[in-house]
């Protein structure tokens, strides 16, 4: 196999790494319009990477001494992360130009972070997993603080960095324990070693818990979510969009792979942790969001809630669970892309929209935009016939297949609570009378419009042709 270079599944990552450097140089040597041109190039690079992933080899050839792995699940999440990355670069372009933040490094940072995510998703070894996480995180720390003259942006960057570093430390400590007690870093070797035992010894349990804490931080599951609202709020809106859309995909894939590959035989040990994280995230996400007045904080709590549902599917730990997670993640990405595409184009009195109450009267001045926001909100709340409902539906199917009745009932109860704050946004747009009209301005570039319409189209029309996505996600193996 080695003699056929196209069979090495590592090609997309190598391509993306090289192209990222090319983008960096390209931006550096460009005199005018560096930001715009680099962004376009980055989108182009990501598109090519998707093609490479899609047409990549199906062979199970693990390169670099099994540092990385290859499966349909990995490919699906890689493509999802790449799509999310493309969408967020496109929708944020005009926003960056609007706030005069024209550093061409931004798309390059996004590229590096996407590369880190692809490696994260594919990693099959504790060491490569850690390095991939760091590559991803370091780019994002910088991105959060990119607006250097803004106190809130710097604050959010520092917060993210300190808490991220802390969690990485915990993660690393967990890795060292696992390595110490199993003698291996490779997922499959760990799994093989552990299969000889009936239960984990104390050291391994500690290691597992530490790693879970670190991963919970990355997916921002309660109680390790504290950074999320602050970082979302402080970072520039478009960076927040990227945070909300892409890293979650990779982190979710990672936590799935970590639980289901090396520790697949110790379901009882890790499922307790995930169970708690899941319930806590759903309820805290639902309740804390009610009181928010800042749309970015609200979306932060909403994403915490969504993570709770995805973790239900992980607790279910069956084929339906993997299917549910991929459908849910797909719908999560679409809904976030759509809502951020709108938020990044809405201006209130020449300032980008931040307060939810500023949406007042939007239904009069921009009926189409407010209709779109309503559809996205209803979809996020899991009201049929939109795609969000099917995400939740598959999650509950997986949970009930595993006889997790209590967890499912708690899940639906949390979804009722969360419906309240999604409805509140619709209420503000449609029910509240606005005194001053015409202060909201919606300007959207052609490219963002395409992204927005595409994602809305899928959100609405998924119900008419669900089989495409469902067949793909049903065939995924971890």
């Amino acid at each position, binding site marked *: 196999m080695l003699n056929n270079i196209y069979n090495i599944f590592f090609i997309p990552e190598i391509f993306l790494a090289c192209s990222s450097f090319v983008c960096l140089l390209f931006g550096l040597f460009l005199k005018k319009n560096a930001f715009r041109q680099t962004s376009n190039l980055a989108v182009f690079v990501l598109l090519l990477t998707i093609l490479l992933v899609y047409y990549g080899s199906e062979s199970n050839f693990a390169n670099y001494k099994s540092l990385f792995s290859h499966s349909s699940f990995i490919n699906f999440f890689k493509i999802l992360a790449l799509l999310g990355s493309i969408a967020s670069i496109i929708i944020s372009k005009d926003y960056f130009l609007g706030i005069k933040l024209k550093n061409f490094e931004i798309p390059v940072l996004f590229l590096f972070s996407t590369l880190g995510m692809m490696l994260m998703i594919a990693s099959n070894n504790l060491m490569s997993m850690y390095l991939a996480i760091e590559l991803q995180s370091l780019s994002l720390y910088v991105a959060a603080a990119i607006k250097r003259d803004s106190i809130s942006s710097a604050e959010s960057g520092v917060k993210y960095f300190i808490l991220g570093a802390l969690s990485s430390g915990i993660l690393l400590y967990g890795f060292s324990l696992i390595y110490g007690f199993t003698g291996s870093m490779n997922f499959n070797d760990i799994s093989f070693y552990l299969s000889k035992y009936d239960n984990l010894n104390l050291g391994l349990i500690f290691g597992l818990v530490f790693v879970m804490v670190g991963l919970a931080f990355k997916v921002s599951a309660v109680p390790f979510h504290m950074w999320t609202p602050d970082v979302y709020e402080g970072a520039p809106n478009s960076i927040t969009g990227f945070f909300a859309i892409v890293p979650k995909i990779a982190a979710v894939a990672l936590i799935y792979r970590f639980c289901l590959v090396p520790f697949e035989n110790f379901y009882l040990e890790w499922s307790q942790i995930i169970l708690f994280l899941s319930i806590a995230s759903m309820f805290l996400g639902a309740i804390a969001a009610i009181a928010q007045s800042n749309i970015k904080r609200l979306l932060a709590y909403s994403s915490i809630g969504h993570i709770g549902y995805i973790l239900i599917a992980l607790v279910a730990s069956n084929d339906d669970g993997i*299917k549910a997670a991929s459908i849910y993640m797909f719908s999560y990405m679409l809904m976030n892309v759509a809502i951020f595409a709108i938020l990044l184009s809405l201006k209130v009195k020449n300032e980008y929209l931040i307060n939810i109450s500023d949406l007042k009267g939007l*239904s009069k001045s921009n*009926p189409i935009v407010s209709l779109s926001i309503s559809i996205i909100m*209803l979809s996020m709340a899991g*009201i*049929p*016939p939109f795609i969000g*409902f099917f995400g939740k*539906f598959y999650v*509950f*199917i997986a949970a*009930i*297949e595993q006889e997790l*009745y209590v967890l*499912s*009932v708690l899940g*639906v*109860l949390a*979804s*009722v609570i969360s*419906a*309240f704050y999604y*409805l509140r946004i*619709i*209420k503000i747009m*449609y*029910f509240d009378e606005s005194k001053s009209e015409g202060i909201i301005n919606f300007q959207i570039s052609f490219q963002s419009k395409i992204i927005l319409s595409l994602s809305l189209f899928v959100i609405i029309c998924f*119900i008419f042709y*669900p*089989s495409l996505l*469902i*067949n793909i996600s*049903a065939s995924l193996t971890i």
Partner: protein
Amino acid sequence: MIDWPLVSVIIFLPLIGALIILFIKEDELTSINIKWAALLATLGTFILSLILWLQFDYSNPSYQYEEKFRWFDDFNFFYHVGVDGISLFMILLSTFLTPLCILASWNNIKKRVKEYMLSFLFLETVMIGMFASIDILLFYIFFEAVLIPMYLIIGIWGGNRRIYASFKFFLYTLLGSVLMLIAIIVMYRNTSSMSIEFLQGNYFSYNTQLFLWLAFFASFAVKIPMWPFHTWLPDAHVEAPTAGSVILAGVLLKMGGYGFIRFSLGMLPEATEFFIPLIMTLSIVAIVYTSLVALAQTDIKKLIAYSSVAHMGIVTIGIFLVNQQGLEGAMMQMISHGLVSAALFLCVGVIYDRMHTREIEFYGGLVQRMPLYATVFMIFMLGSVGLPGTSGFIGEFLVIVGAFKFSSYVVIGAAFGIILSAVYMLYLYKRIIFGTITNNKLADILDINTREKIILIPLAISVILLGIFPNLFLDPMRLSLELIITNYEIANAK
């Protein structure tokens, strides 16, 4: 028989109307076009649904006009619609009331006409779709999608406390229906089928049935609504615009009763047997308690809202008697209540449009100025009381006849409720219509105009028609109801 997909056309015609309206530009002049388009779409739907009735095969207890397409590849979820004797009249009720609602809002909806009509047309699609679906998940999707337009209708065009009412309505109903979703998935897991037809055959163990029953109960008891889950209803009714109240009382409450018949009786017979005392107790409390509450109301709409809860108590008694008279009575009571309470809300709308108040004390002596209005109001009032010759009588009579087979205490409770209903309705009528005009503002009030005649007279005719020729309605549903009763008895005889 008809070889084109009649049911699907009926379901989606309003939606097509909505899509057309979406592209009509709205301003002062064109809003009339929007109204006409909506009216034509709903009228077309009504006429098509009449074909459904005319071509209906009375000797077939199961589903007719079936359409079935595979929808999801990975599990047995079909787009499967059809009509049987039970759903036929629910669909007719929806298609009959919606054009009347559009007409009723012709002049008094002045802001956002386009969104209003869109909501109503979407609402009609999901209502019909819900009654016509033979697949549980499809049923659930429609059942929950109803919340979206209704939330908007109450919230945008409602009264002063509309926001509170719309949230309460949405969250209350959502809480009930998400539990139903879990029950549906559990059913699917046990049987690998989502077909309502297939599941009506007692497939679940006794304990599973009990939990499933409670989950469905949570959803339908909120929807119908039963005491003590009824508190959303008075708020929603009072704050909704006239047409919203009409649809709410006329059709949405029937979703609960329909669900009880299809799911609780049809699929969970043994659990139903176990829970019958609970239902009977709650129903009798509902009938007596809400009737007394209705007596104390000062707002006309609120009074009618509470009377709805009482009437729905009769329906739940009838359904859970599980005998021929009881079920037929419950169905008749649902149809009758759909027409009568809708008409009563429209009548309230008539005077509300003129005087902008619903306080009972404000009115009095309307018969002096509005003789025609007094006449139609009387027909509906008597229909609500259950006077022989009106639709209300048939339902209540059949339920009481059926109840005698069950327990005379239930009969006493139900009969007491019927007496109370006469008390509060006649008292209401006396206060509003009779006497001399004491309030000077009423001196110039005009009698109902042509548009209002077009709305109210068909309703009055159908109320009387239902009272005189009940077999017109009972014959098509008889066999379908018998099928459910037979299944129920077989399951419980084991």
